[in-house]
């Protein structure tokens, strides 16, 4: 048996897109090694039979449902470890995101399994799954092969495409779990709190994004002026670092724990281009990066890179674009 077990995260009655990608990927790869794809869900009343069985449309044949705390890793590790003990899955697959990393790594410890994170591709090789992950700032790709009974694969965000099929309905199995004492040491006080104004960046044709290189919260004024110069369907976006620092609202955040965008133009101002940011914007049609550090990783994946001082370039660029549009 070579079954694949995935974890499907949910919030307010809807499944996470990256988790659904993991189910699709798990189903496709399991088939290649003669197995099935199953899913684990952990939560409360909102996990209805109907919602759970709908995972069949993504390729899961069985859904293991456990009542427990949502949004924390430890309870899910307990559930997945029990399901794997009872059913003998060969692989555990996660769609990335914060919880996927935590659960996958904790499960690796619990089950003495190998784990690979930031995986961008999974393939079958001699009846086993191998995982490919980019390393060294994405300049190389490394291939992981697993020893032992269980291999754990944690995808990079957006790595696995969501694929639906007609008429799929998964069998829903309730699992009774005795949670570990340490799983009960953490409780959720507030989940999914939005901070700052609600802005829409996902539908924008042009995004002007700011990062820590802006130097101070007021640096966003330059970014906003440039966005205004572009006009039309242009919005302002931000990196996690500046959102966490309170410079810009959470709703404008791009990247691993923020939004994924693919506008016609992405202009990154003072953004170094960490992997967590890159995964949220790399499919933009055109990328311009302006940064004073010539070694910033963002220059590796921008179409036009400008090495220079934002404070000098941004205002004059805004003026030039305004003049062009007016003329």
């Amino acid at each position, binding site marked *: 048996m070579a079954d694949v077990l995935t974890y499907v995260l949910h919030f307010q009655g809807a499944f996470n897109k990256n988790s659904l990608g993991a189910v699709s990927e798990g189903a496709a790869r399991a088939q290649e090694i003669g197995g099935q794809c199953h899913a684990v869900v952990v939560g409360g009343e909102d996990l209805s039979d109907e919602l759970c069985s709908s995972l069949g449309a993504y390729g899961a044949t069985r859904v293991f449902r456990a009542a427990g705390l949502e949004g924390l890793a430890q309870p899910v590790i307990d559930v997945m470890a029990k399901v794997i003990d009872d059913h003998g899955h060969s692989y555990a697959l996660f769609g990335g995101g*914060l919880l996927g*990393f935590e659960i996958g790594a904790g499960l*690796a410890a619990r089950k*003495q399994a190998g784990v690979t994170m930031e995986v961008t591709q999974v393939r079958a090789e001699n009846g086993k799954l191998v995982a490919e992950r980019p390393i060294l700032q994405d300049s190389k790709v490394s291939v992981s092969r697993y020893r032992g009974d269980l291999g754990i694969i944690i995808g990079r965000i957006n790595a696995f495409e969501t694929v639906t099929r007609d008429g799929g309905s998964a069998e829903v199995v309730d699992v009774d779990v005795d949670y570990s004492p340490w799983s009960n040491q953490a409780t959720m006080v507030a989940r999914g709190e939005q901070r700052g104004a609600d802005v829409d960046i996902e539908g924008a044709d042009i995004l002007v994004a700011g990062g820590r290189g802006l130097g101070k919260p007021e640096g966003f004024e330059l970014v906003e002026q440039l966005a205004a110069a572009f006009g039309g369907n242009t919005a302002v976006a931000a990196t996690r670092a500046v959102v966490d620092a309170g410079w810009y609202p959470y709703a404008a955040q791009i990247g691993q724990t923020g939004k994924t965008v693919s506008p016609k133009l992405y202009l990154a101002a003072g953004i170094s281009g960490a992997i967590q940011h890159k995964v949220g914007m790399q499919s933009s049609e055109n990328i311009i990066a302006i940064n004073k550090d010539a070694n910033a990783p963002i220059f590796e994946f921008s*179409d036009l890179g400008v090495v220079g001082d934002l404070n000098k370039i941004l205002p004059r660029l805004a003026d030039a674009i305004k003049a062009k549009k007016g003329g």
Partner: protein
Amino acid sequence: MKICVLVKEVPDAAVEKRIDPSTGRMDRSGEKNLNPYDTHAIEAAMQIREGGAVQVDEIVALTMGPESAMRALHKAVSLGADRSIHLTDPALAGSDVAATGYALSKALASEQPDLVLLGQQSDDGECYTIGAVVADHLQMPSLTQVIKMDVEDGALRCERQAEYGYDTVQVRLPAVISVGDAINEPRYPSLKAIMGARKKPLEQVAAGDVGIDPGLVGADGSRVQCGDFHDPPAKAPGQVIEDEDTSETVDKIVAWLEERKLI
């Protein structure tokens, strides 16, 4: 309360990183430094101590690595740790993430900390998971990427960004917390602290001293084998402009935009 901080020596940001083709491991030669993310973990420990909500008896820095890794401990001590432990053993070389987490957890278990802190990622390996591995071995809850942490009634109130926004989680100790770089601004060590760092206790321990099962560490004990290193699909390199004359630079950007009908 006893706090252990996990630290790591990483290649300096300016050193070009590569895989050594003969070993298939990262070439860790060249200038090294304390992982910048770890300085936030030490600072977080110092702020708990100075905050006064709980008495911190000891802050202990722990690293695993070859002889040179000792320098990361000196740095950690200069930033505020009281003493340090260097887990070093040829048997540990080549350990994957899961094996490294197991080895660190054994060294931590003999210290019996109330709180284990670490940085959210290492600058070189680009993985965010060691804390979660360590926590499960120690049978402690774990949170990663915490950006605000307050001691409240002997528990930690932690905030972080998760998939759907900001989460606030109450964690009873003992626990393993990995902190994000937004949690604080690490202080600079004083000259006196730098000079004094070498005088603070530094204990070297081998795998056997902390009960590490040799079958579960090193390249042979690791459950993942990495290999077949290759280049990613080539992407045409972008054009780069060095800004010398800003008017000229702006003209070039505008022309580039016009060419692509973006304005």
